[in-house]
């Protein structure tokens, strides 16, 4: 596609429920990233996928968070047993080289 597509754009969930966030990167981009941005804060790195290599999961805050990337394209970020502190905007980005990331519009997650 022309840009990075994320869905849903907004998600309200009850504490303890699982959620899945989806990212469809730009076609041909080999690298895909997930970041989290809490209200008024900077960007927190979560996970990075590069081609067929093992993902860099060093930023995942707990074992409730996981992500996968199927076929080197679409990625899903899963948060199990959501907590209120998980409320944030989850941003996905992809890149095909040194020219920087292209970000999606984000998923705003609210845990109530």
């Amino acid at each position, binding site marked *: 596609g022309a840009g990075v597509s994320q869905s849903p754009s907004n998600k309200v969930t009850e504490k303890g429920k699982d959620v899945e966030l989806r990212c469809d990167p730009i076609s041909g981009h080999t690298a895909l*990233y997930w*970041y989290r941005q809490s209200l008024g804060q*900077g*960007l927190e*790195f979560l996970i*990075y996928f*590069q081609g067929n290599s093992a993902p*860099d999961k060093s*930023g995942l805050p707990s074992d409730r968070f996981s992500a996968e990337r199927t076929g080197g394209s679409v990625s899903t970020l899963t948060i199990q047993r959501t907590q209120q502190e998980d409320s944030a905007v989850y*941003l996905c*980005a992809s890149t095909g080289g*040194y*020219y*920087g*990331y*292209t*970000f*999606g*519009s*984000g998923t705003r997650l609210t845990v109530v």
Partner: protein
Amino acid sequence: ELKVEQNPLFLSMQEGKNYTIYCNYSTTSDRLYWYRQDPGKSLESLFVLLSNGAVKQEGRLMASLDTKARLSTLHITAAVHDLSATYFCAVDTNGNQFYFGTGTSLTVIP
């Protein structure tokens, strides 16, 4: 771990004035990026700086990179209200991930 510091964190300036946002980082890198984020929106790429001494300009914004000093600047000339946003710099050291600064929230007052 690489640290990226921006200052100021908050900037309120009058229309027509000039100002500079600074981005310092703690390790060697030849690649630095500037992004703009409007409230409730995602990040938009502004500048890509890929070598020492690189300078890029777009409208009232100009970015530069000094890799020896580990410093990038984003200079605003004759600010206008439309420039109000949060500006992030990001450093790429190994091609694996970007390290983002804390952001500078800019408000341009008429």
